[in-house]
């Protein structure tokens, strides 16, 4: 097709299987593959890695894809754009280069994008009068007493477009906002203006369309039949779910499809379903590059597994960028035990009472909060769950109990569970628990979303051959 470009979803989260992306690369099913590795809490996970080893802090599945997906893309002329660099894009480039070097690949050009990490600048920001108020609660950052784990700004598409203009084959970025990975590719390919305060309405609309396409691609298989109520009972194979591929035209319209040889499906329903995912006001979806009005989007099935998406409208980009600060709030520990018929429910209640009494007598004052969830009854929906009738309850085959506590020190987590081990023999009959069903002392993090003026944030692109990252 003339003047169009194909962008495929590669992985939808840190840890997602690269199988679909490898198939797309093998089949030359796209010109670009994007991999959005950074969910809101992923940077917190990467921070734990970096604390243990300063050379880490990137999405470690890159180490696997450097053996298969990245060489396959390079061989077939497909460019891979990802924010898997996380907190350490240079570390990611070094690791990937080492693995490529073992395979004799030296000339692949890697672009590293930095500038989103403002961890070291938070004090300066405050000294210069920024309150870094929480956008959800309005509280100023000065009230925070927890240690900061990371602080990253959601940056836009410009650095992606610049890196591609410099000939990058692989882009390793940090906290580039999810849909901006795709917008950067489109801005480069179609020469759309970014970073311009006086864009025409037509220019803004194109950026808005690019964001919409990026939003539809950023969660991998969620736009092609995965996690779908709209297509339930999912009358298609899931084991080989094909990931969505957008063929995008110069006006910003796109046709979504998937490889015919793959499972899953692309329908009006799967696209609608992903369109609403994690959106707040659909007429005002804020991104670093453009504010998007999604309420005029049209979604049409043009053929089997071919869905056309068009009609997003753009409004000028925001003056401020979103900054997400991670805070170490303490620890949590949880444990799961099951009881069987007869009287599964009553046994759970008896068990919970015993646990409460043991903790009270042991004086475990470090427990700040304890929750008791009944798996099979209200584990997922809590107190909102519909109650089971007494007849159903008395005949339940089995019910699980999940104990979960929040605490500020690791000793409390260990003591809390050691103190109730005795219930294996002293408790209600038939307690079934395996040590792997739960975990002590998991780090508990909270996120502090705030805004900072965009002029305080400059991203940098460094583009070089893989071999140059080896030193």
């Amino acid at each position, binding site marked *: 097709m003339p003047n169009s470009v194909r962008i495929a979803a590669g992985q939808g989260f840190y840890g997602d299987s690269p199988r679909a992306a490898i198939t797309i690369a093998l089949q030359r099913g796209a010109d670009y593959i994007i991999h959005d590795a950074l969910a809101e809490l992923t940077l917190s996970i990467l921070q734990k890695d970096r604390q243990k080893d300063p050379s880490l802090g990137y999405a470690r599945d890159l180490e696997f894809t450097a053996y298969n997906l990245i060489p396959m893309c390079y061989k077939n002329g497909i460019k891979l754009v990802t924010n898997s660099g996380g907190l350490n894009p240079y570390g990611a480039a070094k690791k990937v280069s080492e693995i490529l070097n073992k395979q004799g690949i030296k000339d692949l050009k890697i672009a590293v994008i930095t500038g989103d990490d403002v961890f070291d600048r938070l004090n300066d920001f405050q000294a210069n009068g920024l309150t870094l108020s929480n956008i959800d609660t309005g509280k100023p950052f000065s009230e925070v007493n927890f240690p900061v784990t990371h602080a990253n700004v959601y940056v836009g598409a410009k650095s992606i477009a610049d890196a591609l203009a410099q000939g990058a084959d692989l882009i390793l970025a940090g906290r580039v906002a999810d849909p901006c990975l795709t917008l950067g590719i489109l801005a480069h390919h179609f020469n759309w203006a970014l970073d311009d305060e006086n864009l025409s309405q037509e220019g803004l609309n194109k950026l808005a369309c690019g964001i919409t396409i990026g939003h539809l691609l950023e969660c991998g298989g969620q736009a092609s039949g995965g996690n779908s109520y*709209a297509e339930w009972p999912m009358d298609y194979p899931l084991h080989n779910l094909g990931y969505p591929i957008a063929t995008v035209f110069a006006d910003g319209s796109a046709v979504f499809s998937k490889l015919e040889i793959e499972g899953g499906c692309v329908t009006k*329903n799967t696209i609608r*379903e992903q369109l609403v995912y994690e*959106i*707040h006001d659909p007429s005002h979806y804020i991104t670093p590059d453009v504010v998007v009005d999604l*309420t005029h989007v049209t979604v049409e099935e043009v053929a089997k597994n071919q869905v056309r998406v068009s009609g997003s409208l753009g409004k000028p980009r925001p003056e401020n960028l979103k900054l997400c600060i991670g805070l170490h709030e303490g620890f949590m520990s949880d444990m799961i035990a099951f009881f069987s018929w007869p009287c599964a429910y009553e046994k759970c209640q008896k068990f919970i009472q015993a646990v409460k009494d043991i903790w009270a007598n042991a004086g475990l004052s470090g427990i700040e909060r304890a929750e008791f969830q009944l798996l099979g009854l209200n584990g997922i929906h809590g107190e*909102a769950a519909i109650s089971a009738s007494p007849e159903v309850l008395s005949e339940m085959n089995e019910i699980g109990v*999940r104990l979960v506590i*929040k605490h500020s020190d690791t000793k409390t987590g260990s003591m809390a569970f050691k103190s109730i081990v005795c219930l294996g023999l002293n408790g209600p009959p038939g307690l079934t628990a395996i040590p792997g069903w739960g975990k002590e002392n998991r780090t*508990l993090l909270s996120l502090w979303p705030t805004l900072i003026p965009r002029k305080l944030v400059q991203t940098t692109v460094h583009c070089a051959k893989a071999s140059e990252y080896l030193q």
Partner: protein
Amino acid sequence: MKVRLIEIAAARSGDKNDVCNIGVLAKSAEAYQILKKQLTPELVKAHFGNLIQGQVIRYEWDSIEALNFVCFQALDGGASRSLRMDTLGKNFSSHLLRLEIEI
């Protein structure tokens, strides 16, 4: 006559820190009109009881025949600090689909 929402709609939910949104997709144009009339934010908030501590805002999305419910203080402080099982609110969709509405 009452029906469960799952008969006339699909839904997908997700998280943004402590905010959960539930997109409700009508299965037909007729169903969308029923949803617009019956599925109020007050009804949604009541259905979730204390799971949603803050307000629920409803957005109408005519071009794709969907309603989007944005639920504040809904995820026990957000996925990375929540003590819940469903830390990301992925099953807010499931619970909402069980709601009975008048048609």
